[in-house]
């Protein structure tokens, strides 16, 4: 199929940037979206133009590196997938596809479609861990039984790949689904309870500091999340935060 692409081009962080139109031809419906971008880049390279920079790595939907806003949705129109898992069969011959970087003040553009998501790292550094040293003498893994339901719910929260689709999709650029997922994972496990109070306060404080917006519960994040992380995680974080604040 033949497509028209409207792509955000921005030379560097200080550049103003603009949308530029490109045409690609003979795109197979079996291609992944990023393979279609490879075709475009090969074409640009051969013409002596600079290829479109975009983040990608594992190309199997788990590393969380790819980050495109396609036709007005994070990771494009399909559900439960990252951009690398989006296939061209979701589009029709002759379509015009608008491709933009994930937009948020806390995700500044580095170049073209590449954004800086280190704000996520800093939130994790503020408390997204359990303080245990590597000693080889920690207690046996089966010493504390964890009920299956809690373990499974913790796992569901832990599947977050940190791609930032939640922020990109949120009309407020809020990071609460991301933070909620991490807070939930630890809050649900006995190992994580010990530091739960400080963790939620520190992570939320860092989240606020990074300039993410406030959650208004539109639920867009949950719909666009490639891993289907539930809004219940935000509710759990809110509860955790409230009780942590009361504890002082």
């Amino acid at each position, binding site marked *: 199929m033949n497509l028209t692409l409207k792509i955000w081009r921005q*030379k560097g962080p200080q550049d103003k940037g603009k949308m530029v139109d490109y045409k690609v031809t003979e795109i*197979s419906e*079996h291609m*992944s979206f*990023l*393979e279609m971008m*490879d*075709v475009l880049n*090969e074409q640009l*390279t*051969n013409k002596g*133009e*600079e*290829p479109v920079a975009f983040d*990608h*790595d*594992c*190309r*199997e939907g*788990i*590393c969380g*590196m790819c980050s495109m806003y396609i036709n007005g949705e994070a990771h494009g129109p*399909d559900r*439960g997938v990252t951009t690398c*898992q989006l*296939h061209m069969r979701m589009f029709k011959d002759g379509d015009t596809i608008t491709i933009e970087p994930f937009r948020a003040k806390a995700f500044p553009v*580095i170049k073209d479609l*590449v954004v800086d*998501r*280190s704000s*996520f*790292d800093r939130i*994790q*550094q*503020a408390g*997204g*861990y*359990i*303080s*245990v040293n*590597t000693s*080889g003498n*920690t*207690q046996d*893994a*089966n010493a504390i*039984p*964890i*009920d*299956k339901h809690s*373990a*499974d719910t*913790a*796992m569901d929260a*832990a*599947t977050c790949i940190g791609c930032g689709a939640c922020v990109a999709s949120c009309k407020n650029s809020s990071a609460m689904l991301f933070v909620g997922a991490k807070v939930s*994972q630890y809050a649900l*496990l006995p*190992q*994580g309870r010990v530091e739960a109070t400080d963790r939620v306060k520190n992570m939320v404080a860092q989240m606020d500091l990074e300039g993410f917006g406030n959650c208004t519960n539109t639920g867009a994040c949950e719909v666009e999340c490639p891993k289907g992380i539930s809004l219940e995680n935000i509710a759990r974080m809110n509860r955790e935060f409230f009780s942590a604040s009361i504890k002082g």
Partner: protein
Amino acid sequence: MSVLDSKIPKGPLKDKWTTYKDKINLVNPANKRNIDVIVVGTGLAGGSAAATLAELGYRVKAFCYQDSPRRAHSIAAQGGINAAKNYQGDGDSTYRLFYDTVKGGDYRSREANVYRLAEVSANIIDQCVAQGVPFARDYGGLLDNRSFGGVLVSRTFYAKGQTGQQLLLGAYSAMNRQIARGKIEMYNRHEMLDVVKVNGKARGIIARNLVTGEIERHSAHAVVIASGGYGNVYFLSTNAMGSNATAAWKIHKKGAFFANPCYTQIHPTCIPRSGDYQSKLTLMSESLRNDGRIWVPKNMEDVLAIREGKLKPTQLSEDQRDYYLERRYPAFGNLVPRDVASRAAKERCDAGYGVNATGEAVYLDFKSAIERYGLEQAKIHGIQNASKEKITALGEAVVEEKYGNLFQMYEKIVDENPYKTPMMIYPATHYTMGGVWVDYNLMTTVEGLYCIGEANFSDHGANRLGASALMQGLADGYFVLPYTIGDYLSHEIRTGKIPTDSPEFDAAEKEVTERINFFVNNKGTHSVDYFHKRLGKVMWDKCGMSRNAQGLKEAIAEIKAIREEFYKEVKVPGSANEMNPELEKAGRVADFLELGELFAKDALMREESCGGHFREESVEIDGEQKGEAKRNDKDYAFVAAWEYKGEPSDAVLHKEQLEFKDIELKQRSYK
């Protein structure tokens, strides 16, 4: 006496590691604060090592090319992690894990290293649970296990189909804690482009800031390389797009020997290639083979009709199908080890029986399993005379519960419903057992330069067992390197800060800058990928699942020719002083073009079939094992460590003889 000293401690196998640890030199906490360690790569091995070294008190600088340590490709591991916990009480033990690993590696790994790996495996699970890794649990709240890779015990711990992700996020969280405490300085979007040696010791690296293009100097008292494997030498593999061998190859060029490059694992259950535009291959967990039956049509007419779309695979009756694994290996059937399953698929496709347009695919069929589970469920629910549809529905529900996420992934990519029509699979490059040679301390042949995880060669011999890669990465990073590196660093307490304005740093930086300038100024005609794809094709055709002397000789010549053309004709748009993904790729592919040649040279040298390395000349000629891989323990029970001497063709072979004192060498049989 070889120049290689593996430094394996004396004493009985079982006590080596404990005794060694007791006698190892330590660094006192006050001195650790003044010692810098660089860790390159933040996957399971690098991430866990960086975190642990920082906990111990060293000043750590960690580097990764991704935008966050959490994205390292360890994250893509699906199945699980082995550990000799024996929670299931099915007779597992440290020795049995050790034995299985050595046997699975076709007796080409170092006994002492493997035993140590098995020994610390249990600690890994304890550590990860303490970190909050949500492993699967049973209803009693205890950890669940599954069996994996055809071994006889259930020792694999898992977190859904995302075990690698959860373990990596565990290591990442441990790193985050140290980053927050200022003990780790994290350099994201940085690529190591050379190691700096001062007086024969590794003293730092030259790295490129991938955002600004700036070339940076970083010094340290020791350098740890944890940059993963080199599977992308094939262009198409299950590795991430950015996975590269540059760090490992650069240290090889600076004196670290490269061991067994020809040992590559080709994983049998991947989604087949659909066209030339394909950028990577997607793995489907090996566990699918527990219930799926692999087949191709018996008759060539049917193959052709299927390819043309005139016939559906479901229309073929049982006697028109060739369940070739069950036919060839009645004892293990569809559960033969990875290398055997892969070669058998290739054999059928080479004979012309491949079932998709490219001729490179076989069927993985769940129909029997769905029927079997359906009948079972009907019985459990007391449904008399269940209709065929009911049985199918019940069976599909069971299969969905077991493999739902994989089936969904397959459907997203291929656009076919694997419940209704058989999956198509084909082998793909997955893991590289070969890598930088290291001694028992995980130090390379360069003093102060360490290599851990998939990047080194140490534990898997010629073939890796399922769920063992995660185990090795974390064992190296959490429990081995942090001890052994102390022994070396204990001699560095008086060294003081390493300056970066020395002539050695100048020279290394100059070399790196010149190379980058070469690429951006080379006004060639072809993109980097053009050459990478050509290299990949040579590697796949001639150094792939089966190899022969003639093909390998051709490969050596062809790779050399592609390399020469690459330097003449490669075109890198953009400049050096900005984010430039094409420039990054150019540097990586240049290294693959050298590594590929050494790979072929190593494969040519090893005139035996072992594990992932199958030489067509070395097969059993008659008897029950006719046509199967034939190992040659008399002449090839050694590690081939190559020393760099300029061109890959000039590399010098050093042999580390492998001694098996606690294990009897046997031919693997799956008949």
